[in-house]
Every structure is written in C-alpha cells, then in structure tokens.
C-alpha cells in the first residue's frame, strides 16, 4: 500500500506528458482546435485517431532528413567522445603522472561551462573553418561537452576495476596496452555503454548549437527542425509538432530499453570479480 500508491501517483505524473504527446499526435485537427467550452470537448481521449500529422510530417516537411541528420550527428559525436573519454578516463585514473588529479578536476570544470556562453566563441571557430550549416559543425562541437562527461564517468568506472586484474594480466604476459584492451575495457563495458547512452541522448536532444550552427532547413536536426518549421509566428501546428516529438523520442527510448540492464550496472558501478 505504502509502496504502490505513491508509485502509481509518481508514474502518472511522469507519464502524463508522454501520454499527452501521443494523444495529441493522433488527434484530428478538428478536435485539437475545439474551444474548451464546447459541448463535446474531451481533451484526454479521441474516438477518431488519425495518422494525418505523421503523414504531414513526412510529406510536407523535411522530417525524414532531420531524423537522418540527428542520427548521424548523434552517433558520430558519441563515437568520437567515447573513444576520447575511455582513453582519457583510463589515463587519468590508472597512469600515475604529475597533475593527474587536478587535470581530472579541470576536465570536469569545462563540463560545467554553460553552452549558452560557449556557443559564441564556438560560432566564431565554426565560421573560420567554414563548417557552418554542415553536420560537422555539430559533430565537432558536441564533444566539447560530451568528452568531459564521458571522461568523468569512465574515470569513476575505471577506478572501481580492481588494479590487480591489470597487474595480473601484465604478469601473465600482456603489455599495458593489451591489458587495457583485453581486460580493463571488457570489464568496463557497462560503464562504456552508459556513457555512450548518455552521450547519445545529450547530442540527440541538443538544441542551442544546432539552432545556431545550422540554418538551411534540410540540414537541421529534429529538435530544431520541428520547432522552427512547425511553429510559424504565433501559429503552433500542434498535431505535427507532437508527432515529431514522439517520433524523435522513440530512438532514445529504444536505446535506453535495449541497454537498460548494462546501464543500471554502469551507474551503480559494480564489478563482481
């Protein structure tokens, strides 16, 4: 009783926006714009579900390209950040070199610099390298916040891997490099997966850089495309907006549910030997 009732309330509270998004995206326009004081006003349910908004998205807007852009950008920047983050995290947690500790803290601090400040100098750099309005403007700027994040997460994870494992491998005949490749990284897979999922979600949902660095409609990502193309002036195309949001959140949801076990193991940092 004390468990299920609060749990149910909590679930209801959490899932309601999602429900609202789903119901709005399948509701015909006639119902959507019905005034609240009309007789058959029924905001929480529809008897005439329709896929018109989805069709509109794919036929009247560049939603398919946005989806592709977002996927490509998110995957590429996640891959770059993971590779850098895993190596940096390993080095900072395992190799004893001067200032390793302060360097680790320094990397974390860069993560705390707000993007709303950082995009101004970054815009200058993007312009100088003529990367504006290409996916590379995002693939190369997202790591500015993804690498510190991945590094920090991996540092903590590598520290939890007993150092005897690596020492044993090195006595067994592995070089430092092989010990990392064959022993430490496989053991740290849950940590790497959770860093990857986090990085993927962060770049999938990123808004400011995408808004600033991309201008032509066919280059945009889902969050920017949906909000800039489906809100015209003060007119909100609620149906397609919500359909876009729904389709945009599905890949992230799939990524989470697919790796959820590893992900939880990664966050709780458990290595059972």
């Amino acid at each position, binding site marked *: 009783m004390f468990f299920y009732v609060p749990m149910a309330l909590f679930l209801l509270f959490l899932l309601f926006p999602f429900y609202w998004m789903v119901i709005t995206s399948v509701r015909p326009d006639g119902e959507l714009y019905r005034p609240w004081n009309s007789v058959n006003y029924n905001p929480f349910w529809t008897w005439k579900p329709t896929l018109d908004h989805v069709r509109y998205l794919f036929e009247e807007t560049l939603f398919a390209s946005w989806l592709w852009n977002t996927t490509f950008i998110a995957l590429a920047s996640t891959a770059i950040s993971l590779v850098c983050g895993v190596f940096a995290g390993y080095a900072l947690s395992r190799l004893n070199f001067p200032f390793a500790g302060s360097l680790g803290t320094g990397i974390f601090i860069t993560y705390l610099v707000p993007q709303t400040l950082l995009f101004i100098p970054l815009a200058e750099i993007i312009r100088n390298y003529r990367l504006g309005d290409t996916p590379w403007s995002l693939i190369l700027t997202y790591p500015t916040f993804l690498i510190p994040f991945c590094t920090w997460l991996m540092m903590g994870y590598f520290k939890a891997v*007993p150092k005897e494992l690596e020492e044993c491998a090195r*006595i067994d005949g592995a070089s430092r490099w092989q010990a990392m490749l064959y022993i430490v990284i496989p053991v740290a897979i849950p940590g790497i997966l959770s860093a990857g999922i986090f990085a993927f979600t962060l770049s999938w949902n990123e808004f400011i850089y995408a808004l600033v660095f991309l201008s032509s409609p066919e280059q945009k990502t889902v969050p920017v495309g949906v909000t800039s193309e489906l809100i015209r002036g003060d007119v909100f195309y609620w149906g397609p907006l919500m359909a876009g949001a729904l389709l945009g959140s599905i890949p992230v949801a799939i990524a989470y549910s697919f790796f959820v076990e590893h992900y939880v193991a990664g966050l709780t940092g458990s290595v059972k*030997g």
Partner: protein
Amino acid sequence: MGQVVLKGINKFFDSVHAVNDVNLQIRDKEFMVFVGPSGCGKTTTLRMIAGLEAISSGDISIDGNVVNELAPMDRDIAMVFQNYALYPHMSVYDNMAFGLKMRKFEKREIDKRVLEAADILGIRELLTRRPRQLSGGQRQRVALGRAIVRHPRVFLFDEPLSNLDAKLRVQMRVELKRLHLRLGTTAIYVTHDQVEAMTLGDRVVVMKDGMVQQVGEPLELYNQPANKFVAGFIGSPAMNFTAVTVTEANGSLIAENSGLRIKLPDETAQRLRGHIGREVMLGVRPEDLTVAGSADLGHPCFDAVIEVVEQLGSEILLDMKVGESIMVASVEPTARVRVGDKLRVAMRPSRLHVFDAQTEAAI
C-alpha cells in the same frame, strides 16, 4: 631453475622508507615465506620482485640475471593475488589460458596445459563457468591454476588464503604444500599469519618496519629468535615477556622483579655475565611453563595467581598474574586448576630466552 637474489633492496614511497636494505638469497625450488605485521614491507618486496613496483635502489636478479628494468611479463614469474584477480568476463578455461595466449602458445599446447592444471587442482568440471559462479575456494584454485599452467620459474603468492574461511584455509594450506612438493617450483609467499609461515615455509623471513628481522627455517625462528619481535611474533600463544634485573648472589645469577625471583641456569647465566645489575627482558613460551611438580626440582620456579582458565581440549591456557605482569601458560588438559588458585609454576631451564632491554636483540 628459479633462484632469486635480492641485493640491498630499498623502496621509498615519498618520504616513507617502506623497504629498508633487504638482502636475501632464495634458492631454487625453495618455498620462502615473508611474514610480518601489516605495513612491514613484505607485500612491497614481493611486488618489486614481480616488477609491479619500481625499486628505489638495489638489485633483484632471477637465475643470475638482474631484472630491475624488466617488465613483469618478461620475468617469467606467476603471481596469485589476495583477491584472486580472476578476469570476470572470461570463463575459467579462458582465465587459465590467457597467459599462454598472450605468449602465443599453440592451441593444442594451451589445451593440454590447462586440462593438466585443472586435473591437478580438481577443477575440470568448472572450466566453462564464470568466476562469479564459483565459491571462494574454487576461485582460489582457479587463481592457482592460472599460475601453474605457465610453468614459470617463480611463483609469487600475496596472502592467497586470507580471504578464505578458517577451515578452508587449513585445507588449502595443505594443498599448497602438496602442490609445491609436486611441482618443485620456487615459491615466494607473503602472509601475516605466522601459522601459515611456519607450516608452509622451507625458510621464513620475518619483517618489521621494512627491515628483515631474521631469516631461517621455521624451527630455528621458534627456538632461536634473533630478537624480541621475532620471539613474540612466532608461536601461538605468544611468548611471555617480563622485565627482570640481573643480580649476582653466591656465584650464581639471579633474575628478579616484583613477582618472581629465579636462579638462572648456568647456560643462560654464561651469556648474562656482562649484564649484572642491569635490566633485561626475560622471555618464556607458554608451552615451556608447567605446574611445578616433583619432576621440576631444581628448575626455576615462581608463584602465580590464576586469573582466566581457557579450556582448549588438547591443552589448557592459564592467564596468570605474576607480580605486576600477566603470563600465559599452556598446561596439560588433565591439570585441575580453577580461577583464583595460587600455583607454583616451573620453567624449562633450557628454554629461557633473554633479550637486551634497549636493543631487544637476543643475548
């Protein structure tokens, strides 16, 4: 072959002198045990032999070759860690085969060696399991198996039994000894448990504060400890110590303090001639104290009051108040004693130890 020589080994961690001028010769096929309280530098010494810790100064050589600069993988050693350090993502078979794969052995040879080791250790049916599906004792065996498949020149053991429960520890101790007799590979074994040291070691190195206190065969350490620390560390229950003043009366030497006054046997007296009028530490093991009877006529005796009686079945431990100090005696299980009893206790005269009060070295 597997002869390990340590020459003038020092290790500093910043300002801490963790290992202080250690000189040792470990012979081929020998089972050498490093024993001492935690922080005495025994594990650091082992890790320096393994190549996991850099040497601050000195030379380590294996079979005559100085290995100071060699990477762990090139020293031809195998190590068993306290927490076993099994690779959690690999099966038992792969754990054991890893070292051979890294050294590019043929698959047939790997298979042969792993199965052979698995048979020796009785873990053949566990080969497909993952480490987390094993019990503590089984993990221990896998860790041993991983070491023996390599046929290394030297085995290094870092407190391998300390994570096991008491019963299993005794069992694995015997198996380790049997394994060593069978394989005949040089073994260096670190432990803080003096029973393990005594039972396993061909020779034992007792360390304290980074310094070697004594090197010798187990019974040598027990019978002729070099100083008070070794005397107190080896043997259970620990040796009794009491400070006494040496005086001369009628040509013989007397040791006395507030609780006892004994005539020192001639052999001990000889050594103490130079200490007349000074304070020394008198040491006697619990098993060398008996309830005085007619057989002990002429043995040094003193009075004691029993404070605690510990029945162990095979023996009785008596905690006794002797003057101001407490002494423990281990007596026959047939002795009829009760708390509060006043006893006359005899010492075996040939088993008295004396130590310098300042340097604590044996006199």
